[in-house]
């Protein structure tokens, strides 16, 4: 009787690797033509099979269903997962030591580009405007523009970058978000993971991860080119966050909230990356 080992051992012939010339059985030598057709069969066969599989994979991805609407929407489900995974990777290289390049004042554009008015159409009554800061406890701070202007002012002249692909050097002035947090003793709120900002009419809204919000170049801006913000640039107060694309730089801030969950985000609901960091 054969031992188990012998039974399990495949016959020698089956172990032959067709690519390895040493394993060729010497008994039945193949002619050159046979070798050619054998290798062609294997390689072209693999090529067609793998190529078809790749094409099938692409069709699957391209036709994959849209994600279920949560705080994000509008992207193919697998691509949204990929964006979120990629966010985890790029968050690792985020550092407060990495600063956006700044420029001398004369490089700033006189005509600051204006792209969209969603949530900040028409005039705003600046005298009536207040910034509402909603703490997680439910407590609401109401802060006027004059109170914000009394805080230390920071200017930044940097290259503003739009998700569309254009960029423009522009000059903004306002309160550093981290100074604002310190002054209003909101440090406990910064232990939460996200900041949410919305326009007074709640038509435009963004969610910002806390490290980006607390980046030393993030401003609550009330000036452009050293003059009060005009309506089209988000009067009376807007977010200037150089570590994000323009889509996150909310104009006409009405309220600020803090949360451990991602706050709703206008463009993330339309298929864009939630993080959108630079």
């Amino acid at each position, binding site marked *: 009787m054969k031992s188990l080992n012998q039974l399990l051992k495949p016959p020698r012939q089956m172990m032959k690797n067709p690519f390895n*010339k040493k394993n*060729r059985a*010497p008994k039945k*030598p*193949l002619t*050159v*033509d046979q*070798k*050619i057709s054998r*290798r*062609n069969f*294997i*390689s*072209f066969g693999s*090529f067609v099979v793998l*190529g078809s599989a*790749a094409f099938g994979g*692409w069709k699957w991805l391209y036709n994959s269903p849209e994600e279920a609407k949560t705080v994000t929407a*509008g*992207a*193919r489900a697998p*691509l*949204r997962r*990929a*964006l979120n995974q*990629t966010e985890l990777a*790029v968050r690792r*290289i*985020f*550092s407060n030591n*990495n*600063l*956006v*390049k700044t420029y001398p004042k004369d490089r700033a554009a006189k005509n600051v580009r204006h792209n969209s008015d969603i949530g900040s159409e028409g005039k705003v009554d600046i005298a009536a405007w207040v910034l509402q800061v909603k703490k997680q406890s439910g407590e609401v701070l109401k802060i006027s523009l004059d109170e914000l202007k009394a805080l230390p002012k920071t200017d930044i002249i940097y*290259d503003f*970058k*739009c*998700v*569309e*692909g*254009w*960029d423009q050097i522009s000059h903004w002035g306002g309160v550093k978000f981290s100074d604002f947090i310190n002054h209003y003793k909101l440090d406990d709120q910064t232990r939460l993971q996200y900041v949410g900002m919305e326009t007074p009419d709640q038509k435009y809204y963004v969610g910002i991860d806390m490290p980006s919000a607390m980046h030393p170049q993030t401003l609550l801006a009330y000036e452009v080119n050293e003059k009060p913000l005009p309506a089209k640039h988000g009067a009376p107060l807007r977010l200037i966050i*150089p*570590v994000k694309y323009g889509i996150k730089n909310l104009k006409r801030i009405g309220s600020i909230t803090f949360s451990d969950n991602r706050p709703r985000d206008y*463009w993330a609901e*339309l*298929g*864009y*990356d939630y993080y959108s*960091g*630079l």
Partner: protein
Amino acid sequence: MKVIKEKHPLAMRWTHWVNFPILTIMIWSGMLIYWANDEYKITLFGHTYFNFFPEWFYKALHIPHRLAEGMAFHFLFMWFFTLNGILYVLYTLISGEWRELVPQKKSFKEAWLVLLHDLHIRKTAPPQNKYNAAQRIAYTAIIVMGLGSLITGLAIYKPVQFYYLTWLCGGYHFARILHFALTIGYVLFFVVHIVQVILAGWNNFRSVISGFEIVHEEPKPVIETTTPNDEKPVQ
């Protein structure tokens, strides 16, 4: 007598054919992104010769209003593009194949002679190993371009976190131009590559899939006593 001559190693064939669809997807999704701010044109002495891209081109390829989609595809396939490129370069370095690929001192002069030969101006081409001088330059340049796309891409993808790359590429604005120009370079490379592959013929094309070429050799004058399949293919 027909002889099998080994030509392209499996790793080279594999990375070549993986790269092809990935690069196609990167170029396509890149165009979806570029459309949103399609400001590049060829202008000389105040006259614009070409706009990247004309409206009919966008329409034919169904490109407009797909920025978010383009970014989502681009930022997924960038990983595969990079990984495949790294694997190819590592293989080339470790296996020693780079010796066949990197241009030599004489390659730049020889490449001119190869060009004249290919254009049927000159009868003979310089002697070569696996690749001729023009191929050495082209196949090395395309890898350098790939690295360039990676670096300029990172420079515009994370210009704050990778501020040193953005600086290296001459700033954000210029890095985007370079990233675009490299892509145009791939398309031009592709056109020349396809023409050359067609002209080189089936034996050459097959070698990028099956790995070998068939050469015809005179039978050896010695009497063969061993079986022919024990012979090493003549290099």
